[in-house]
């Protein structure tokens, strides 16, 4: 048995080596959440939107004076370019730009903005001729992108302007925009860090800061704004690195101290630490094998596992300490049934986390349960062979064991205790009246406020589309897809007028439907011929309309163009005869706007408003209430089991945990911590561990060494989960805080309800 386990541990070590080299860590919050869609196109849309955001870093360099902004931006850019392998400047070659211009020039008479179309349809020949003549004799350059005769109605400039939006210009090869009383130079980069590193160093942030410092040395008055998913991912990785160190090593150190002072020997210390390390390593390996990747939050959460997995080792050594006469192997055999029970209940408590079909929680459940199993097996298989000599009672274990007899005892007869009960009840009731719930995605995310602020400023100046709220358009052919978009767009234009959204981006902006193209072509070619003929008459010329493409263009002509690369995320292609595209929305930032958008587009066939954030919120809310119900059922089942075992004394085991759980909730409420899914999950573990203390004290109510085991176990659990309360991720913070209060209070309250000390023999094997 011990040999088999040794082989498995060796295999584990090898897998660990491979895992940490291959960098299979994940920081994307979305990876924690279920993909609720059965629709292939919608899944593809979600993936595409996420992919577009990954890697893109946007920098704005602003100053009241545009020359200063440009000069600062050049210094900034030069510094970025000096460092290799971090950020790559995103530029498009002149050739690619020219290719795009040439492409659209070929189809020039098939392209019209809605306004152009309307005004051309309403125009009369006289007016068109007059404005054409005016342009012919206007002062300055004659035309623009193409020669005058190719575009006598001057349509192409307006069409391009409509594609590109207002307010961004190019000066000295830099993109410049105006906003918040400043000129801003727009710099775009792509992060070349293929996966983020868990070395605790914010590489990108440091580079951006040093580039900013270079630019500010010459131009101290400039303002620099950064945004981009890679920056959030990096911040999360740095934060997680700190948290894993604090929580993991912190609780490991604390447990080691406890073990050392309880047993005053080095061997227990080494063995208990070994069981913990093997446990955590097994958690990581199995999670990686099952899920492919391990999420950062799983690691942070898993680090707290240390506080639970040490129980078996401590249990073993404290029993050996109490009964030094019994040899290691028989002792293990004696303890095994109880330890099995303890392991199974804890593992079940952890696995219950995985009942919600959230991949993130399932990872944490698998991680914890397998980690626990590995630690347990290490204790069972190795400890009897490696443990040579039982330790003598230490000063600390002596003190703890004795403390039980001085512990206050609850007495319903005493007036002061009655008043205390009323006060506690009042505190709980008042706390409950303050309870709030929170189900937003934010509970899983902890981005630095400065990053969020900068992003907000950038969206004010430039406008950034949301990758989680967009319109999904589907149809049974590419042509119908584009036509659906074209019927959708006037509704969106109306919403822009009402300030519901700021703008949108659709593929049909760039690839009009064939129907639209031929309508435009008929209109434009007719009018151009007429105008050229009229001008020929009045100027004595014989003007001929230059040829243009005779056929419409479609996706297959357009997609190979290099400039479409960033638009291709909106193109979903065809799946089982169904075509799909994404219309991205910009400036949608209130729930009222969302409702108006939903009203305006809801009735359209083939158009679906996808709102990932609200989908996720309602999912989290759903599981919060469902798990709350499960928790209540759990309490009922535990109450039944306790009654079956302890009859009239059952309340002594359950009440401390119930009071502790209620107090934990009301303390959280007073601290302004909203109840979220993770709070409810913490309460599962509170029920699991808290009731154990009560059971233990009821079973062996006169044995001081059982109180020692409870105290050591509770202290390490508290340390581990208490440190989790330091996490910047709201979900883990709440989880840790609830555990801290819940487990701590049930530990302190349980002995208050112990049976009165009757004469009896100490429990010994």
């Amino acid at each position, binding site marked *: 048995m011990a040999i088999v386990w040794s082989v498995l541990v060796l295999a584990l070590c090898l897998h660990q080596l491979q895992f940490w080299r291959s960098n299979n860590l994940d920081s994307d919050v979305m990876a924690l959440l279920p993909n609720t869609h059965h629709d292939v196109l919608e899944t593809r849309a979600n993936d595409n939107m996420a992919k577009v955001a990954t890697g893109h870093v946007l920098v704005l360099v602003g100053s009241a004076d545009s020359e200063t902004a440009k000069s600062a931006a050049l210094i900034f850019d030069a510094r970025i370019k000096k460092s290799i392998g971090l950020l790559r400047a995103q530029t498009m070659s002149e050739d690619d730009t020219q290719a795009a211009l040439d492409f659209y020039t070929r189809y020039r008479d098939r392209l019209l903005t809605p306004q152009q179309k309307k005004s051309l349809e309403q125009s009369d020949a006289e007016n068109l001729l007059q404005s054409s003549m005016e342009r012919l004799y206007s002062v*300055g350059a004659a035309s623009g992108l193409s020669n005058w005769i190719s575009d006598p109605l001057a349509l192409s400039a307006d069409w391009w302007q409509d594609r590109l939006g207002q307010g961004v210009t190019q000066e000295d090869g830099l993109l410049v925009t105006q906003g918040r009383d400043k000129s801003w130079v727009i710099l775009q980069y792509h992060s070349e860090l293929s996966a983020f590193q868990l070395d605790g160093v914010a590489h990108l942030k440091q580079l951006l800061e040093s580039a900013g410092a270079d630019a500010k040395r010459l131009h101290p008055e400039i303002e620099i704004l950064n945004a981009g998913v890679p920056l959030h991912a990096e911040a999360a990785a740095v934060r997680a690195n700190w948290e894993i160190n604090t929580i993991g090593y912190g609780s490991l150190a604390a447990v080691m101290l406890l073990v050392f002072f309880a047993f005053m020997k080095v061997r227990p210390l080494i063995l208990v630490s070994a069981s913990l390390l093997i446990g955590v390593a097994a958690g990581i390996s199995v999670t990686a094998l099952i899920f492919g990747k391990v999420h950062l939050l799983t690691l942070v959460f898993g680090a707290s596992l240390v506080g639970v997995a040490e129980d078996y080792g401590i249990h073993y050594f404290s029993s050996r300490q109490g009964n030094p006469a019994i040899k290691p192997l028989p002792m293990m055999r004696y303890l095994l049934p109880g330890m099995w029970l303890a392991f199974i209940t804890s593992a079940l408590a952890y696995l219950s986390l995985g009942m919600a079909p959230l991949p993130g929680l399932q990872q944490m459940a698998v991680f914890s349960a397998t980690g626990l199993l590995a630690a347990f097996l290490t204790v069972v298989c190795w400890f009897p062979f490696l443990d040579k000599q039982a330790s003598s009672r230490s000063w600390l274990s002596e003190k703890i064991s004795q403390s039980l007899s001085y512990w206050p005892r609850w007495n319903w007869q005493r007036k002061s205790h009655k008043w205390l009960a009323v006060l506690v009840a009042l505190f709980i009731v008042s706390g409950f009246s303050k309870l709030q719930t929170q189900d937003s995605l934010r509970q899983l995310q902890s981005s630095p406020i400065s990053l969020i602020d900068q992003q907000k400023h950038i969206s004010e100046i430039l406008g950034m589309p949301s990758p989680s709220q967009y319109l999904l358009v589907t149809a049974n052919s590419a042509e119908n897809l584009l036509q659906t978009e074209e019927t959708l767009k006037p509704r969106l234009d109306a919403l822009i007028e009402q300030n519901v959204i700021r703008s949108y981006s659709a593929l049909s902006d760039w690839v009009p439907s064939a129907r639209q193209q031929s309508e435009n072509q008929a209109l434009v070619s007719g009018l151009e011929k007429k105008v050229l003929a009229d001008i020929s008459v009045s100027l004595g010329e014989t003007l001929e309309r230059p040829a243009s493409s005779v056929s419409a263009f479609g996706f297959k002509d357009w997609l190979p163009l290099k400039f479409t690369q960033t638009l291709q995320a909106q193109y979903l292609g065809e799946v089982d005869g169904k075509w799909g595209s994404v219309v991205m929305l910009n400036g949608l930032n209130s729930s009222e706007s969302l409702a108006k958008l939903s009203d305006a587009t809801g009735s359209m066939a083939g158009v679906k408003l996808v709102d990932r954030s609200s989908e996720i919120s309602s999912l989290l809310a759903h599981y919060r209430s469902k798990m709350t119900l499960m928790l209540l059922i759990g309490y009922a089942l535990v109450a039944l089991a306790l009654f079956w075992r302890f009859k009239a004394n059952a309340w002594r085991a359950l009440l401390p945990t119930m009071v502790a759980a209620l107090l934990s909730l009301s303390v959280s409420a007073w601290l302004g911590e909203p109840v979220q899914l993770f709070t409810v999950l913490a309460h599962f573990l509170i029920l699991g561990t808290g009731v154990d203390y009560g059971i233990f004290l009821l079973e062996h109510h006169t044995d001081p060494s059982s109180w020692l085991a409870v105290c050591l176990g509770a202290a390490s659990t508290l340390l581990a989960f208490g440190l989790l309360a330091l996490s910047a991720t709201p979900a883990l913070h709440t989880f840790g805080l609830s555990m801290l209060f819940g487990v701590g209070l049930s530990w302190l309250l349980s002995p208050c309800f112990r049976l009165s000390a009757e004469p009896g023999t100490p429990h010994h094997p």
Partner: protein
Amino acid sequence: MSANRFMPLAVMLMLAVLSLFSDSAKGQSSKTPLIPEVTILRGEFQQIRTLKGFRNPLKSEGRFLVSKSNGVIWQNLKPFPSQIRISNSGKIVNLSKINTTQKAGQKITNPKPNAGMNKIMLAMLSGNQAEMAKYFKIERTESNGIWTLQLQPKAGMARVFAHIEIKGDRYIQQVLMQEKSGDQTELHFSALSEVPNTLTPEEKKYFE
């Protein structure tokens, strides 16, 4: 405006072209002028335009007024009268379309967003070198009191212009604009004067 303001990178670079037609930031004036700067300049112009597909050049004539602080007024007299104002921001107002019975301020703004192009014209006429340097590499030569500027368009501008040549003595004398498309426009200036160097009450009305 249906396009997204937060554009994909590739699209943003297409702006190279568009910068000609939209507003851009105000330039600073340089300390060492290539062209003598003027605060007020009045004169006459003749424009000769050679367009692809046209047998004959298109000729027009008129008067103009440049005020460094206000903008430019172009008054076409031949072949038909028209009058436009280019403000310092590059905005064009078509003054000829204003009904005489209308009050000032009710002017029709030309919706064509070719402000960038107009600002270049304004910069050339008023000698705003910094504004020109945003879009062109400038080379200056001088002989016998006549200076010549060769303007090589920078990245975005190169899609429209092949080359620009400006000549002058005390004042600007002629501009030759060769476009990439093959079209070409020549401007000749005459009867130039900066006296009086403030706007007359009558001239002021144009800028109201």
